[in-house]
């Protein structure tokens, strides 16, 4: 049976960051991201301070640099987009290493890169220190729309089941001599995807029956009461509040 794939983001640990209640961390990361986005792009040193803040969190949480760096790969498509902007940008141009680049475009690229990177690193740190199901409990605690939380929860639970089903279908195809060589094989793959969708849909119906049988009435019951003490909130909010202070200083 499929081993857990979705713990790739989480790092087992017992640091002060790991111990914070999930909803406090969610609020902290969200607030931090808002502060970062609100920072004028010209304040280079403010972005430097934000990066230092995140580095401090990583040190306290004992999340190694390599762990964060490897997961930042998810940002690559945005980076590619950002790199393209100075070339296609309009307006005043400048020469860099013999290339003619748009000044406005350079600013825009820097803006996207800096802010997105900070947001991504903050999210990676959240995911590294909080189990996926705890993040969902935090979201439930913060009264996020129940339907969204439930969808995310089922994804978490059934991802491995569906991946395993996909693997079995692939084995079944290949056992009968199928090799995906080029585009001509796409219809076969597409039909497999369709079959997988139907199977998952039917499973969804059976799961719903199982839920009804145990008294499900449209919302998930609160099984774990999670609460944050005043002190925990203070610790969690230290990150966005410090960032806000930096932002304030940059306006002066």
């Amino acid at each position, binding site marked *: *049976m*499929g*081993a*857990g794939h979705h713990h790739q983001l989480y790092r087992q640990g017992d640091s002060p960051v790991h111990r914070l209640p999930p909803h406090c961390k969610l609020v902290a990361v969200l607030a931090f991201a808002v502060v970062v986005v609100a920072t004028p792009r010209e304040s280079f040193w403010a972005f430097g301070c934000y990066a230092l803040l995140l580095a401090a969190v990583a040190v306290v949480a004992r999340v190694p640099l390599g762990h964060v760096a490897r997961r930042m790969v998810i940002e690559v498509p945005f980076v590619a987009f950002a790199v393209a902007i100075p070339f296609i940008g309009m307006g005043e141009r400048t020469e860099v290493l013999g290339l003619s680049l748009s000044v406005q475009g350079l600013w825009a690229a820097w803006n996207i890169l800096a802010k997105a990177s900070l947001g991504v690193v903050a999210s990676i740190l959240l995911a590294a220190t909080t189990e*996926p*199901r705890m993040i*969902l409990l935090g979201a439930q605690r913060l009264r996020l729309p129940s339907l969204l939380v439930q969808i995310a*929860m*089922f994804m*978490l*639970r*059934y991802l*491995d*089941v569906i991946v395993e089903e996909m693997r079995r279908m692939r084995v079944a195809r290949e056992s009968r001599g199928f090799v995906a060589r080029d585009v001509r094989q796409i219809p076969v793959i597409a039909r497999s995807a369709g079959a997988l969708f139907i199977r998952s849909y039917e*499973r969804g119906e*059976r*799961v719903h*029956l*199982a*839920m*009804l*049988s*145990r*008294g*499900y*009435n449209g919302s998930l*019951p*609160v*099984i*774990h*009461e999670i609460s944050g003490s005043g002190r925990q909130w203070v610790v969690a909010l230290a990150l966005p509040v410090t960032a806000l202070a930096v932002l304030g200083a940059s306006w002066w």
Partner: protein
Amino acid sequence: MVVNSLEVRELAYAYPDGTQALFGVDLTIGRGERVALLGPNGAGKTTLVMHLNGILTAGHGLVRVAGTEVRPGTLKEIRQRVGLVFQDPDDQLFMPTVRDDVAFGPANMGVKGEELERRVKNALDRVGMADRADRPPHHLSFGQRRRVAVATVLVMEPEILVLDEPSSNLDPAARRELAEILRSLDVTVLMVTHDLPYALELCERSLILSGGVIAADGPTRSLLADPALLAAHRLELPYGFAIPEGR
């Protein structure tokens, strides 16, 4: 007056597409009995089971659980009293951890805090899975998942436990472990299966559902000893199986 755990009277049902699945089922199960419902594929076993906790509503006839009739107004109570264990534990275990899954039912009924904790622990103890409470279901073996599925309904303290093909996909050891657990439970059991030796091992009494009606009702031992009866309803003992002399 002795109240029966389950009473089904003249239950008939046709699917929305017009296919008639049940043609008037009558059966009674007394409190504390362990009964097997035998029948070939397509006999209407699953359709019957879906009526027992109101997932399907009777086209004609009625179902009573511990004296309470299954109808829209009593569904909440009925679902608490009828513990349905589905065939595929992956359908039944939908929460991120074993503990959360077992807690799901009682939490829906408004149980919380220490009482919830106690009931979850107790149910997991009864199926020997208390030490796996914090694992995600997909990290368990198939047999363990089925046992947790049993715990998820035991925790509701049901009047009757209904198991759909409990022995399917189990290896011999897991099959025996589940049998030991089912025997140790002090609860009425209706076991839907075509695994005849398993029915003989666990249930004194059996019903044969065939063509949408109850075709036979009697001691498991004597039903299985009647090859003509079994053959008439597409049931067969496995090759080489002989009914052991009285236990």
